[in-house]
């Protein structure tokens, strides 16, 4: 490979240097800020964590206070009552009424008959037929010819685009 001209090389490096944010002082940042490790979570993890926490809160609530009274509990009675009070509060907040959460505002599956329409997996046209072998929907005889000559795995990819593929777990 021919070496790039030094001038061109330099100018690009200069451009990168001018864009680079590392050497720019950021006085507005707290120098003592220590982000928690493993703070990056995806939605699935966050939702799972939240529901687990909720379940455990419910469990402690059911296990303590009203259902199993502990007369004369030692230690710091003040602390206990404060903890119990917050638990009751959070319980109240939950049972207060329906609250919009990330998961419960998701739209439910359609009940409308119109959503049963079938479209050709290859062309997107209306599909009156289904190939029993590949399970692909197709528009006419010509498309069927194409369906039958699809390469290995292509049919599955078409199904995946429609969300009808087989998922091995």
């Amino acid at each position, binding site marked *: 490979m021919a070496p790039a001209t030094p001038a061109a090389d330099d100018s690009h490096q200069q451009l990168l240097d001018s864009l680079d*944010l*590392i050497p*720019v002082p950021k006085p507005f*940042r707290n120098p003592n800020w220590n982000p928690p490790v493993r703070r990056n979570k995806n939605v699935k993890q966050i939702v799972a964590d*939240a529901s687990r926490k909720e379940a455990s809160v419910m469990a402690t609530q059911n296990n303590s206070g009203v259902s199993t009274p502990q007369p004369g509990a030692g230690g710091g009675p003040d602390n206990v009552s404060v903890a119990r009070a917050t638990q009751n509060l959070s319980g109240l907040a939950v049972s207060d*009424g329906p609250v919009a959460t990330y998961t419960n505002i*998701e739209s*439910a599956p*359609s009940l409308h008959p119109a959503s049963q329409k079938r479209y050709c997996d290859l062309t997107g046209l209306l599909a009156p037929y289904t190939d029993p072998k590949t399970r692909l929907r197709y528009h006419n005889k010509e498309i069927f010819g194409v369906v039958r000559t699809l390469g290995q795995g292509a049919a599955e990819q078409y199904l995946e*685009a429609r969300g009808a593929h087989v998922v091995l777990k």
Partner: protein
Amino acid sequence: MTQLNGTITPAPSGRNTPKPAPRIWSVSDPLFRGSRAPPRQVSIQPPAQQPGPDAAIIIDNGSWQTKAGWSFDKTPRLTSPPLMSRYRDRKIGRTLCFVGSDIYADATTRGQSKYAFDPGSSIVGNWDVMEGILDNIFLKLGVDGADGGVGRPIVMTEPVANLGYSQKTMTEIIFECYSAPSLAYGIDSLFSYDYNKGSTGLVVSSAHTSTHIIPVVDNRALLTQATRLNWGGYQNADYLMKLLRLKYPTFPGKLNDTQVEEILREHCYISQDYERELSSYLEWTGLEERNHVVQFPFSEQAVVEKSPEELARMAEKRKESGRRLQEQAAKMRLEKLIRKEQELEYYKSLQQRITTETKKETKRLLDAEDFKDEIALDRRIRELDKSVRKARTKDVGGTENEEDEEPPTFPLLDVPDEELDEAGLKQKRHQRLMKSNHEARQRAKAEKEREKARIAEEERLDEERRDKDLEGWLDERRTARSTILQRIKDRERLKADLGNRKSLASQMRMKNIANLASDTPGRKRRRGGAAAGGDDDTFGANDEDWGVYRQIATGEGSDDEDEEDMDTTLKNLEAQLLKYDPNFTEEHTLAAQSDWSKSLVHAFLRGPWPFNPESQREINQIHLNVERIRVPEVVFQPSIAGLDQAGLVEIASNIITQRLPNPVHRESILKDVFLTGGNTLFKGFEDRLRTELRAVLPAGAPLAVRSAKDPIYDAWKGAAQWAGTQRWKDARVTREEYLEKGPEYLKEHNLGNAYAG
């Protein structure tokens, strides 16, 4: 298309008229916006405006673009994709960091870029990237950080029903890392609605990662009635990408996300009547309008185009040199001829002399000329005579007349061996060979004659039959044609079957291969060949044995000969049928039936234009047709893309007709159906929603649908307008409150999320 011209009446669809040359769109790579030196250490006061202490930093934290600016700005100062690329350059031994559109500076920066959100959602998934984006915002807005923090209130958008963890983490970062004096969250679509002066209505926000439908009554969002459809611009682009990859599995170019997003923006639209439009989308008439051609960059293979003059000159040159060669050859032939003639003369004179000389003298003369005896001389003379004649006829151009020639004699063959000496025996052997040769030639000639006669006779008979019984003759031709068609079909099916590992054809093939490879011949061969066992392998003794290789060979050109043979026979038959069968027209020929202009698949892949698989230009083209309406349609029919959720209209009508807690608001909500978000920018979105809603609502219900003035930026503008008002002051969480009540503390307000616990 042109081959049909003139022979048949034009098809009603106007298939005969060639389509005008396609209009070609192009795609662009993500633009690097150039180097704008970030304002370093710029004073917090921008020159034109004097922001008071309440001038807030507004951040619309979108998953497609981060929009940020001061609350007194008319439009956001900074819009950039939420991307960051931080990597260590080993060559210079330094860590580099680029944020936003700066990551498009070169291939490395681009390749290292990371996305701030969990893909397909508007929930932050990578907080390091998020911090980088915030750093970049504050730097570009010129925050000087005099007091060791950002020093200005922050207003930020968040998704509807944001997850507690995301909200908490963001709050922590804003207060702990950037030490902001206050923070307020709001929902982007509600900001947009507020900016567009809405108070009671149905907010339909179709954005990058999701579509939300939120009823708003008296400026207050009914979040418990809000519904999210997990489909937005991101999913559209993803779906289009999948479709294009499947449509052109061998596409040589590289499709990247930004290009697909651009295609989506430029070419897709919402169909007003999806099924009706779909049913005629690939029809020939007007297909050139519906089919958009997108050209990807390509490099044409260099084909040196020669001008006609050049071609003519080259042909002339070739002819010239050919002529020279011919002349030379003719000259040489002539010289040879002359030499031979001279020799012939000489030998003839010698022969003459011999007849008059004594035997001894004859012997001497012959010895001097290296002849054994007179017979040899005689033969030589005859040979020369023959070759001279041949050469003469060739030069004259006449044909060699072999019939004239007297049949060669083989006198020695009748002489018994005992009477011959060594030389005689040798000659006899030679003559025997010559004789058999001669006879073979004669036989071949006779065979040829017979064949010719047979064909002539057959043709005669055929014609006779045709004259007598045209219908029967035609029937024969038709059956022959259909047999060939069937064979072609069978062959194709076999080919297809061989692609499937489990098919019978494949299994037979594997068995054959195994048999051929094994040392001990399999049952099959033993049964077919001679019954002898052991090492007595008779494979190949029978010519048909080799057919097994033909059977096992698949792939390209396995049956080329056979294929060509069938094709020519079919062509001949079709030509005959065309000539004599009035019912058989050009349209019925296989060629016409497999004509590309009738093919739906061709229309789908290549539009109404012919396709040349050799052309790099055409290989690198993407033809968009059904996709143009198929992809944006998913919001209305999520089942198209396999999303098991109700469509936009079903959700909206469900909310309006059933889920409203207080039906008295129904009419006022219907009077203001408000569209915002980048995904509603498709042409026809508003009209389609209006017609479909009208269809599901009770007759006479009032309905008004409107779009945001700027579906993308109005959320930021709304937030900027909201900051500084009393409503904002009531809704923000100050640093003191944060320190006292923790990161999960949130004040509920009309434009924000509710506290979820």
